């Protein structure tokens, strides 16, 4: 069909460049305003088609639900639009640099998604007879082999459902080992003050008390302070390595010896294993337990906050206490050991129904196989190199928290913002306007106004150079006295800064009928 151009302007006309206007719809072109499902759907509408019920007599014990539930339904096209519009209000790795320190926002390969959906993994019930799930058990066993080999550890518990659940697993194994020795006076766990909040919370959830160890001026565990805290009541230490400042704990072997010297155990938080894979085996450092975050190191998607997966490696001293269930390779088949009795009675128990995050296992193994031992090592080196490149490229305009090179993440503090009126939060929000997700901010707690940047190995040099140029110009603008634009940021995000205080003071945690939309 020929294009009818009669009367149709083909170039922008003079005088059409105006400032912003408020649209009638509230939309801004591609940025669509979206109400809640409760405001667009109704309980009578549905987006599924099901066969008509036959109307047979019910056997619900007289407990039929008669009152209205109120759940709104949407047709399929409305559903599609609702969630596509919402999705467009999210930042994502697939959209741009997501340099959240400690979170390892690396590329999520789509091959992983494809294989995780194979019916032999995705459409298998956890309680099917074992002879019908040999492929699933073999996959778990194969992944366990990769994990044990990469960490240099003899055993792995696969069932923990996330990193913090893995921490529980490791600390429960430590409790069980201590209890088996009758060491019920050993209840104090040493935790560096730079630790993730999950570490102290985990220790307490396993019945331990927490004793904090300070950091040295170079961002590592203060060995002398640690020695001073050692005693017969010490159950162990929880230490992240590389630590949350992005630094390798140089004294780690000595720390392990010291903790073992008082009959304690060494829990290593494996959140930062992405800095070590293929170059260092934690088993060679003297650790007793460590969780892996498959959603960090091994590329399973973060999914807006989960699901995670936290397989936990255990030393010879703790392996017997591992939770059920676990997969065992026998001569002719794989077996799922499901009860404490079947383990001989040492297992500390069960951490969840079923066998862990199978969907994440498939994705993680797909990633490991793709990279292989050579690719995993290269990925580690690139992750560390990228972080150091960012640090070196910004060190003259921002303040590096600790001297020297870093591992997989670069930590800056807010000294460079001193007396500018701009705070770390403002700096982060200004990054949003520039099209970047901010780095981790105000963590670790040992550094004032912390900015923790973890680029991961997934960024190209060109992408990093653009990022660095933006960060440099923001730093220069901040120190150049331009406070207002930082305080106003973000301006171009789907929303301006949100009032978190109001949210916490008067919690509105659900929609209630009759609530008017004020957007």
């Amino acid at each position, binding site marked *: 069909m020929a294009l009818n151009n009669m009367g149709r302007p083909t170039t922008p006309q003079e005088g059409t460049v105006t400032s912003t206007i408020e649209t009638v719809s509230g939309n801004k072109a591609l940025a669509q305003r979206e109400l809640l*499902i409760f405001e667009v759907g109704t309980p009578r*509408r*549905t987006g599924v088609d099901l066969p008509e*019920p036959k109307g047979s007599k019910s*056997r*619900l014990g*007289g407990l*039929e*639900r008669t009152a209205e*539930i109120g*759940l709104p*339904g949407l047709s399929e096209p409305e559903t599609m639009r*609702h969630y596509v519009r*919402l*999705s467009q*209000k999210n930042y*994502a*790795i697939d959209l741009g640099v997501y340099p959240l320190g400690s979170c390892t926002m690396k590329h999520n390969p789509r091959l992983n998604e*494809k294989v995780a*959906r194979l019916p*032999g*993994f995705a459409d298998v*019930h*956890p*309680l099917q007879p074992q002879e019908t*799930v*040999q492929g699933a058990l*073999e996959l778990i066993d194969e992944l366990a082999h990769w994990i044990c*080999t990469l960490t240099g550890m003899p055993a792995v518990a696969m069932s923990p459902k996330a990193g913090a659940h893995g921490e529980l697993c490791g600390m429960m194994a430590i*409790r069980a080992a201590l209890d088996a020795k009758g060491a019920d006076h050993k209840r104090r766990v040493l935790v560096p003050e730079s630790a993730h909040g999950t570490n102290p919370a985990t220790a307490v*959830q396993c019945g331990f008390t927490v004793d904090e160890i300070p950091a040295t001026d170079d961002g590592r565990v203060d060995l002398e302070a640690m020695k001073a805290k050692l005693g017969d009541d010490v159950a162990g230490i929880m230490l992240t390595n590389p630590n949350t400042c992005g630094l390798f704990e140089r004294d780690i072997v000595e720390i392990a010896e010291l903790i073992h010297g008082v009959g304690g155990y060494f829990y290593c938080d494996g959140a930062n294993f992405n800095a070590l894979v293929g*170059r260092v085996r934690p088993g060679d*450092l003297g650790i007793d337990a460590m969780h892996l975050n498959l959603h960090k190191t091994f590329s399973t998607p*973060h*999914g*807006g*906050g*989960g699901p995670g997966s936290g397989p936990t490696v255990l030393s010879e001293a703790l392996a017997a206490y591992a939770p059920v269930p676990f997969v065992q390779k026998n001569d002719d088949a794989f077996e799922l050991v499901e009860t404490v009795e079947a383990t001989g009675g040492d297992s*500390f128990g069960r*951490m*969840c*129904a079923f066998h862990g*995050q199978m969907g*994440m296992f498939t994705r993680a193994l*797909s990633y490991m*196989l*793709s990279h292989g031992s050579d690719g995993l090592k290269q*990925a580690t080196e690139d992750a560390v*190199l990228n972080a150091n490149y960012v*640090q070196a490229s910004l060190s003259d305009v921002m303040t590096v928290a600790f001297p020297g090179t870093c591992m997989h993440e670069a930590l800056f503090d807010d000294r460079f913002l001193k007396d500018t009126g701009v705070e770390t939060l403002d700096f982060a929000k200004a990054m949003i306007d520039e099209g970047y*997700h901010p780095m981790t901010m105000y963590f670790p707690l040992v550094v004032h106004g912390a900015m923790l940047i973890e680029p991961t190995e997934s960024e*190209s040099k060109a992408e990093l150079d653009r990022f660095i140029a933006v960060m440099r110009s923001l730093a220069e603008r901040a120190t150049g006295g331009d406070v207002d634009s930082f305080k106003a940021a973000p301006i171009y995000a*789907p929303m*301006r*800064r949100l009032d*978190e205080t*109001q949210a916490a003071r008067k*919690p509105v*945690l659900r929609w209630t009928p009759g609530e008017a939309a004020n*957007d």
Partner: protein
Amino acid sequence: MRYLPLNENDRKDMLAKVGVPMVDALFEDVPKSARLTGLIDLPTHMTEAEVESHLTRLAGKSRAAGSGSFFIGAGAYRHHIPATVDHLIQRSEFLTAYTPYQPEISQGTLQVLFEFQTQVAMLTGMEVANASMYDGSTACAEAVLMACRVKRRKKVKLAAGLHPHYAATTENQAQFLGLDLKTADCAPGKDSDVMDGLDKDVAAIVVQSPNVFGEIIDLELYAEAAHEVGALLIAVFTEPVAFGAIKSPGEMGADIVVGEGQSIGVGLNYGGPYVGLLACRQKLVRQMPGRVCGETVDAEGKRGYVLTLSTREQHIRREKATSNICTNSGLCTVAWSIHMSLLGEAGLRQLATINHEKACELADKLTAIDGVELVNDSFFNEFTLRLSKPAKQVVDAMLKNDVLGGLHASRLMDGQDDLLIVAATETNSEADMNAFETALREALS
């Protein structure tokens, strides 16, 4: 390697900028004894096609539930998931986003969480819900800890119909905190024993309905008994579709409701990831574990959403947190919420009715067989049969006819060797049910 964008020239230039001659210099803090020189003893890289072929071969060694007659439930249920759900959760913006800590660029995830919390509260008949837990079993354990905090008491009683994995998960957590957990041997028809001998030391009783045998429990009696001694009723479920047909725990007086959400939007996945649901009364909210999303306004007064009440959580409260939990089931909550939006109340009720009718029809078919007796009078889409032969033996025999005909109770508990737990859903055809009937008849003859 296809996932790594740097090339050798980039690396050389970048090392020069960093000021080190080679990458090894960046690892010099590692003790010499722990530095690896060569490659770890694992296979080297594979092409995308090779990986896919290897994993497809492995997947082929398992019998997919949907490839034949299938009737296993007991905590995970096979339902049809609309194609829309799986498409939408694979959108990059949901799939590859982190926890919504920067709310200005995370409103998509946050609004879904707010909607999810509301849907869960409506479904369970409660006032509020959190943004999900790992799964039903861990949600159950967390609810028990929560009740002990709320009541400042240490004794909790679990009913005999609670899924044994849930009981074991809760027991495991409780043993490390010195809680006095009273468990019951799992058995049908014994739930009400949990109300015997309640006293002022009891923080909560934990009752599942429909219970692990499929029996529907009138929770009102349990709520009254608990409240009489100042304790809470924690109601547990493993099949959320049931609440399209039966009264919600909230309507019957439960104080905390926890359960497995997998049936809605999340596949079987051989046990995970799933999505734990946790709902409670408004007044208990500050003792609730886990992430929660709340409504607020932005600087221009527009309605928006943020993660809130974080002073309960580990990243702020550290050793004083309500739980060490750090993630939620993120993408599974999105899937759950999308599926529930597609269903709506009308669709959910219809789905529930069909499930119940399938189960009734199947129960009639199977109990017509000699040596088969129905254990529970009331049920939703799952019921328990007492067989004239050990159920494990019967399950194995039926498998020879490619029928996955329910779960022998002995897989989950001791002393109930003749019980078979059977679930039916909308995915079961007439032909599936007939195959089951034939296989069971044959196995028992």
